[in-house]
């Protein structure tokens, strides 16, 4: 069966199409070439609407233990936001950390067709993946958190050769069905368990510096040919002056590709009366100069949310700002941790207001939309349904300036935002939320509308109010099936889980098995998640190719 999406205007940056008026044809879940004579079995008249590939969220805490703990902690949030079951849909609750089905429906209704969980601790892999089989509508995948796992820290402390580290990373990614590697406060989560309360990138903990962790992991990811570069949550999150740490992290990678996540939280100076200032310009300048560096912003959005992070060291500090006043801290399995602190970001509060401005400064100062991604670090900066509001802030300068005028006066004085006249174009939005995330994740058939691409498509009716436009697409297609129309769910496909299976020398399994037997609380064979466990629970796996660049 061939479906025609007729009369739309195509924004497909991967193919240089900016508002090209042409019909799109879909068959068997894929974009296909126009059939002879343009014959189709079914046709949608798009009437000049904007057509983009489905949105891809590169960093969203959507599943796993810390999300479930957040749901538990945010009881009021779940009481206030209810979703009734429908003929096709399951019931749900929650706004800041919605239940799994609600998460999928909301992403799809907003035109997103993929979202990636960025912080899975190794020991939680089985449970997180099984949870994601109950997250429908979107494709998904996980980044495995390493860099606080005691095994890697020991290897680095005894100066194990890089080949061994590569083998270990490859083994771990296969064992946990990961798509990428993330490091969170490298070394710091482990150090906090030993009662260190702060750790800068050149400090030593257990014989290792965060600098060394970053370098080894960035290099391993590169050598194994994992498409997504090392995803880095730097040391010193949230601290005034942490821009120095962030810039030192770029240097630590020594040219290996890296992705700096929720960069807004890592772009702080220490200037001004209040010893807290924007360093967005410095980070943007460094990113503009270093083509191997990408970033997502982690914009904060005013209102109630909850912060859920692997960074126990930072979250223990942040407990002082908990609103409401309750928080969770957990040390996890000699491989990570999690800290959960509710936050209410307020525009009349100096620090929050400046954080908001810093995020927008980053968006507007980083020049290459292929290297900057739209995130709120859901839910840490704000819940993902606020994306359309954020898009309007980026695309509509008057709207941005009007919001800026409501900020705490001292924050207004401390930001250069009003001098930044840039407005994102539809083409740039398509890059930042579709084409570029697909490229940086190695999803060759997503994020674009070329022949052969998966037919993940969002259709928006042109509207000068970009927030309204991006909140409710007219049509959303997932793998060729219309799944949402004007906010209503029409079909509930389960979505696929994207993974990589990098190759390494399996000889690493000997020492790994010994380490697990001596120290860990599960055996190696039970730690390892079998792909069949995900498939047996209703999941569908797609393996993305790695292109190894290992030395001979």
């Amino acid at each position, binding site marked *: 069966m061939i479906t025609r999406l007729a009369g739309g205007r195509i924004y497909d940056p991967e193919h240089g199409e900016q508002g090209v008026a042409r019909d799109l044809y879909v068959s068997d879940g894929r974009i296909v070439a126009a059939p002879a004579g343009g014959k189709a079995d079914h046709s949608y008249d798009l009437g000049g609407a904007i057509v983009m590939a489905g949105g891809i969220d590169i960093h969203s805490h959507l599943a796993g233990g810390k999300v479930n703990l957040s749901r538990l902690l945010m009881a009021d949030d779940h009481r206030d936001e209810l979703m009734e*079951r429908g003929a096709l849909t399951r019931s749900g609750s929650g706004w800041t950390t919605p239940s799994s089905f609600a998460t999928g429906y909301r992403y799809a209704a907003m035109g997103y067709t993929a979202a990636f969980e960025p912080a899975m601790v190794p020991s939680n892999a089985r449970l997180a993946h099984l949870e994601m089989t109950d997250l429908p509508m979107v494709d998904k995948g996980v980044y495995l958190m390493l860099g606080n796992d005691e095994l890697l820290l020991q290897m680095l402390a005894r100066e194990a050769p890089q080949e061994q580290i590569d083998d270990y990373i490859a083994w771990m990614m296969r064992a946990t069905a990961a798509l990428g590697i993330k490091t969170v406060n490298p070394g710091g989560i482990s150090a906090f368990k030993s009662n260190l309360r702060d750790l800068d990138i050149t400090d030593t903990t257990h014989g290792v510096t965060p600098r060394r962790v970053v370098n080894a992991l960035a290099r391993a990811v590169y050598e194994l040919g994992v498409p997504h570069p090392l995803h880095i949550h730097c040391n010193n999150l949230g601290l005034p002056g942490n821009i120095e740490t962030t810039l030192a992290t770029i240097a630590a990678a020594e040219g290996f590709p890296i992705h700096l996540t929720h960069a807004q939280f890592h772009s702080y100076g220490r200037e001004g009366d209040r010893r807290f200032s924007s360093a967005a310009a410095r980070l943007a300048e460094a990113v503009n100069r270093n083509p191997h560096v990408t970033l997502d912003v982690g914009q904060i959005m005013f209102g109630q949310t909850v912060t859920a992070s692997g960074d126990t060291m930072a979250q223990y500090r942040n407990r002082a700002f908990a609103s409401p006043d309750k928080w969770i801290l957990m*040390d996890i399995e000699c491989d990570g941790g999690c800290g959960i602190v509710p936050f209410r970001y307020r525009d009349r509060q100096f620090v929050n207001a400046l954080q908001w401005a810093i995020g927008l400064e980053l968006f507007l100062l980083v020049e290459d939309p292929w290297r900057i991604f739209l995130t709120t670090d859901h839910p840490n900066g704000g819940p993902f349904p606020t994306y359309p509001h954020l898009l309007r802030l980026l695309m509509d300068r008057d709207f941005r300036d009007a919001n800026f005028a409501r900020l705490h006066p001292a924050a207004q004085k401390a930001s250069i935002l009003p001098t930044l006249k840039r407005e994102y174009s539809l083409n740039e939005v398509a890059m930042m939320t579709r084409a570029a995330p697909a490229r940086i994740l190695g999803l060759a058939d997503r994020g674009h509308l070329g022949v052969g691409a998966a037919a993940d498509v969002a259709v928006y009716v042109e509207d000068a109010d970009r927030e309204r436009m991006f909140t409710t697409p007219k049509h959303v297609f997932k793998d060729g099936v219309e799944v949402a129309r004007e906010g209503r769910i029409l079909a509930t496909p389960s979505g696929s889980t994207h993974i990589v299976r990098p190759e390494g020398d399996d000889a690493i399994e000997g020492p790994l098995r010994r380490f697990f037997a001596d120290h860990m609380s599960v055996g190696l064979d039970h730690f390892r998640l079998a792909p069949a466990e995900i498939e047996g629970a209703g999941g569908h796996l797609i393996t993305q190719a790695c292109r190894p660049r290992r030395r001979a």
Partner: protein
Amino acid sequence: VATRAITCPFCALACDDLGAAEAGVDTRGCAKAAAGFARDAGRTEHRVRGKPVPLADAVAAAAALLSQARLPLITGAGADLAGIRALIALADRAGAVIDPWQSMVLRRNFAVTQESGALTATFGEVANRADAILLLGGDPAPDYPRVFERLVDNGTPLFRSTPPSLAYLGPAAAAPRRTMAAAIHLDSNRLLDGVAALHAALAGRLPRDADIAGVPAAAFVELGERLSAAHYGAILWDVRNLADDGKAVVATVLRILRHLNRRTRAVGLPLAGSDNALGFVQALLWQTGWPAQVSLAGGAPEHDPWRFDAARLIAAGEIDALLWVAGLSHSPPPATMAPTVALLAPDIALTGEAAVEIRVGVPGLDHPGTLVRADAVVALPLDAVRKTALPSVAAVAQAIVESLGARA
């Protein structure tokens, strides 16, 4: 040669070093595991009103019963994660209340997390780091037989150089059978006074001449100093050893832990969740947003610890259908006037007659599955070690959902 390591589903420690071989399962000296793996597989007939029927007929009867009910309740204990996911889907479809059996016991822990938070660690952290462990309320070994082997007696810890020092606060009669470096004995109904005194001692607010449940203040001061001096202290309790004021005990323990963490590290490790109750809580959290005591009767998930407590609903006669699940536990359904669909492991004797009786396999024994451990972070794969034709809870629940769909 033909021995493979398997996971034990019979308590929430989920020990995964048992050996399955042709000759049987090596249960590593655990009597609970030995009894579990020796469970009888004799009762395999499905019945409707006492008469043996094919599974499909029993499923159809269960669907009919649930579809006619105004307020059905799904409860019980003991399904693997797939079974629990399917039961919640069934509850959503049928408009049922769903609640893990005895969730009021679990609530002693999770209500404190909801209201104040938590400060905890997983097994691996306690086993590798804890240099001082305070056991609270009673011996956890009856519920968790290998708890000391798993969490205390790790011979190759990563971080501590000597075995952890153990302390105990709780009733003498329930004291763990271990040598304690310090012990404070008080009645279980005075445990709250005990932890409150410990908190006061840490905060320097306990009068020196105070007497708490017959224990002099100095004992609490000494215990506080012991925890303060530890590099990584752990407070461990079996939630079933707490009394009805258990929630207040847990809340006070959280205050103690917060105090300790100002200067050193300390964590709690609540032990709970046998029969995969924490798998139930986890799946409820992600599917509905609530941990337990959830009603799906109104179309959207509602949580109320009193209204939707399964035991209270049954006792008060507020339900008109009960779906009882006992795939891991030994428990026959509780007495109720409501017609009952009972999903039972093959060794459970029914005292009366259930409207519908469906025999299901035991996960980890009759079929593979997934079990969530007491720390709620780690889930372990379960194997099948014997051959039976019994369906899983997941298969039965899915079949009931399909039958309901066909009726609609």
